[in-house]
C-alpha cells in the first residue's frame, strides 16, 4: 500500500473503483473464474509436492504491473503463497 492509498479515505466510491480495476484486469485478460480456479489448483498441486503451504492464506490473482520492457502496465499473475512447513521430501 502506498502512502497515497493510506491517506485516501476508503469511501464506497473508492471501493467501487478498486474492485472494478481488479475485475477488469481479469476480464480483459479473457481469464474466466473457472480457469483461474484451475490455475490455482495446479499451482497448489505442484508446490505441495515440495513444501506444505497454507491453503487458507493463499492468494492468487491477475493484477497489473509496470512492464520492464515497454512503458505501461501489463497483466501479471500475482501469487502470495504462505509456507507452513518446508518439507524435505524427495
Amino acid at each position: 500500500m502506498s502512502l497515497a492509498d493510506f491517506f485516501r479515505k476508503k469511501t464506497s466510491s473508492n471501493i467501487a473503483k478498486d474492485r472494478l480495476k481488479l475485475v477488469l484486469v481479469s476480464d480483459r485478460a479473457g481469464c474466466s473464474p473457472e480457469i483461474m480456479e484451475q490455475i490455482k489448483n495446479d499451482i497448489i498441486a505442484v508446490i505441495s509436492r515440495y513444501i506444505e503451504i497454507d491453503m487458507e492464506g493463499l492468494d492468487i490473482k491477475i493484477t497489473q504491473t509496470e512492464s520492464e520492457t515497454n512503458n505501461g502496465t501489463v497483466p501479471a499473475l500475482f501469487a502470495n503463497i504462505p509456507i507452513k512447513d518446508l518439507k524435505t521430501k524427495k
Partner: protein
Amino acid sequence: MGEVIVVTSGKGGVGKTTSTANIGTGLAKLDKKVVLIDTDIGLRNLDVVMGLENRIVYNLVDVIEGNCRIKQALIKDKRYPNLYLLPSAQTRDKTSVTPEQMKKLADELREEFDYILMDCPAGIEQGFKNAIAGADRALVVSTPEVSAVRDADRIIGLLEASEIKQTHLIVNRLRSDMVKRGDMMSSDDVVEILAVDLIGVVPDDENIVISTNQGEPLVGSDTLAGQAYMNISRRIIGEEVPYLDLNGKQGLFSKLASLLKKN
C-alpha cells in the same frame, strides 16, 4: 454523406434509448437531418420515448425483408421536420436481421441523412452485432455503477475489435451530491477506468422520467439533463462545448431563493 452512430452500453437500463432520443432530437434542433433506428427487435421502445408509437405502419424488419420501401417505414416527427424514426418490429426476434443487411440499410440512409443513430439493444449477441455493423462511431452509455462500467468495458473491447473508428463515453445518471460525499464514482473515475474519451455527463434528473412519460425528449430545455444532452449533440457536430457545472445543481431561481433564506 451522413454519419452512422451507434448508441450502446452492454448493460440494460442505463439510458441508451433515452440518450438516442435526446441526442437525435438535439441534432435535429441543430438543423441536421436525422433518422433514429430502433434496432432492438422484439423489445420496441424508442417509439414510445419519442411519442411516435401511434404512427407506426411499417418497421425495420419490413424494410429489410422488402415488404415496403424505406420511405414508407420512416415516421416523420411532428415537432421537427428533419427528424425521422425507423421503428423496430415487436413480434419478431434479433435473428430476423443480419449484420450485412443492417450495413446495407445504413449505407442507403447515409445518402439522405446527416446523422443515422442506431439504438442498440442490451447484451453482446446478435442484436448488438446488427446495431454496430454499419456504424462509423459509437457512443457508449454507462452509469457510475460497477455493473454498468464493467459491461461498458466489455463493449468497448468489442467495439475496438470491430471496424468502428471512434468510441466516446456518456456517463449517465450522475448524482453530484453522492459523488461529493464519496458514495458514487465521478465521471473522471469512470473515464480513468475505461480509458476512453468522454463526450458528455448527464445528471440524474427526474425531468427525464417526466419527459419520457410525455413522449417528448427534453433536450435543449431548461433542465440540467436537457442542457447536458444538447451539449452532447453539439459536440457530435464538432463544436467545442464546456462541461456543465453539475455541482451547481440549483437553477438561478432556487439559488436566489436560498440566498434570501440565508439572509
